[in-house]
């Protein structure tokens, strides 16, 4: 793909993402029914849940990229892992900020050390450390190797963090989505959350491709500079 085609594609992605997100907001605030007990504050759900899901997806991409890099040694996988980690951290931050805003009126507290909250916070810390590590290794091949190892160990750790916290104490409601009897979402809420998810997914892919492209350009630049010096 040449430069101008790439540019047009990202512009198109941006337009689609904006359209989807704005209409999802409209849907969330105007069309979707108000939740019976929580009231209008529950609408934060249309950002909270898709962002959470997207950050987990992004961290899964970090894991896949890490494994693929160590097996193939192709720099592209490392760039993908790094880009996904940054996107994941951004969405994880959105979850950690929107969560307390929702919790304060509903639970009466900003924060509680419940299994899912704690796991999300630890997840955030793990991938911030991953990005820190990348910052402090100069050689690109070594950076890719060390980051891949941390990307794998961090991902394997997540279920253990979750289990430990789950057994320790938990406050979140029983899973509403795919939960037991009497749980489940209103179909209209389903549409809203899927719509918001589509919008955020498009936006996240745009960020991901831009970041990936930046990594590729940085590698090219380093190589050119090296050739010039010779």
């Amino acid at each position, binding site marked *: 793909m040449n430069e101008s085609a790439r540019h047009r594609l990202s512009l198109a992605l941006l337009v689609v993402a904006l359209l989807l997100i704005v209409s999802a907001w409209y849907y969330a605030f105007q069309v979707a029914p108000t939740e019976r007990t929580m009231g209008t504050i529950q609408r934060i759900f249309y950002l909270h849940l898709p962002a959470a899901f997207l950050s987990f997806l992004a961290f899964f991409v970090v894991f896949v990229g890490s494994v693929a890099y160590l097996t193939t040694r192709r720099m592209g996988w490392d760039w993908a892992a790094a880009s996904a980690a940054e996107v994941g951290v951004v969405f994880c931050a959105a979850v950690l900020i929107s969560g307390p805003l929702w919790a304060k009126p509903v639970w009466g507290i900003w924060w509680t050390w419940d299994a899912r909250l704690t796991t999300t916070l630890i997840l955030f810390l793990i991938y911030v450390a991953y990005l*820190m590590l990348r910052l402090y290794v100069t050689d690109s091949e070594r950076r890719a190797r*060390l980051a891949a190892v941390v990307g794998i160990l961090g991902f394997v750790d997540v279920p253990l963090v979750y289990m430990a916290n789950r057994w320790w104490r938990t406050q979140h409601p029983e899973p509403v989505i795919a939960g037991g009897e009497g749980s489940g979402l209103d179909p209209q809420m389903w549409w809203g959350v899927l719509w918001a998810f589509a919008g955020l997914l498009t936006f996240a892919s745009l960020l991901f491709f831009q970041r990936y492209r930046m990594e590729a350009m940085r590698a090219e630049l380093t190589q050119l500079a090296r050739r010039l010096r010779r």
Partner: protein
Amino acid sequence: MDTGRVTLAVFRKDLVAERRTKEVFTAVLLFGFTVSVAFTFAFEPTSAEARKITGGLLWLAFLFSAVLGLNRAFARETSNQCLQGLRLIPADLGGVYLGKLASNLLFLLLAELVLLPPFGVFFDLTLWARPGWLFLILLLGTWGLAALGTMFSAVSANTRMQELMLPLLLLPLTVPVLIAAIESTVILLEGRPMSEAALWIKLLTGFDIVFTLLCWLLFDYVIQE
């Protein structure tokens, strides 16, 4: 040369180095002691409420001093190109990891055993009622810290940040170890039946096995040039 022999050789080398310098053991011990004293200023150390959180304090003291000691594990190999020497071993480099893990585990456990009596005195604890269980919890918890700590010590020795990288990586990833070790220590210290800690002991054992194996498999990628 097979993995077992590399492991043993690295383990023995570390023992000799430690016997001559005593740097890791002394630093871990002194730091752990200082931190325990510092903790007593945060609240009334011998009150009944304090009993509930001393299990947590004990493990935090261990964790902080472990970070200090584990940093030395590979930092000590960076001088005189020792790391280069280790890389050139014509055998499975995973053995280097296992040897380092074994020596770190031994140093940390020894330091912890020396730290326990003063800790028990400061916080008025009955530590020795069930020595078998106490040792099992210490062993499993410290192994968990050392398994990831040894690995991240090698990772951070390869960065520009050196010592600063280890705690940033280690703390969030060892959360399951901390929770499980603290919970089972509290059960032990409060004199509750140890069957209540079965879940935590299982979690610790699982964590230790998973991460020892995984780090052993991945260690090649950390150390190679």
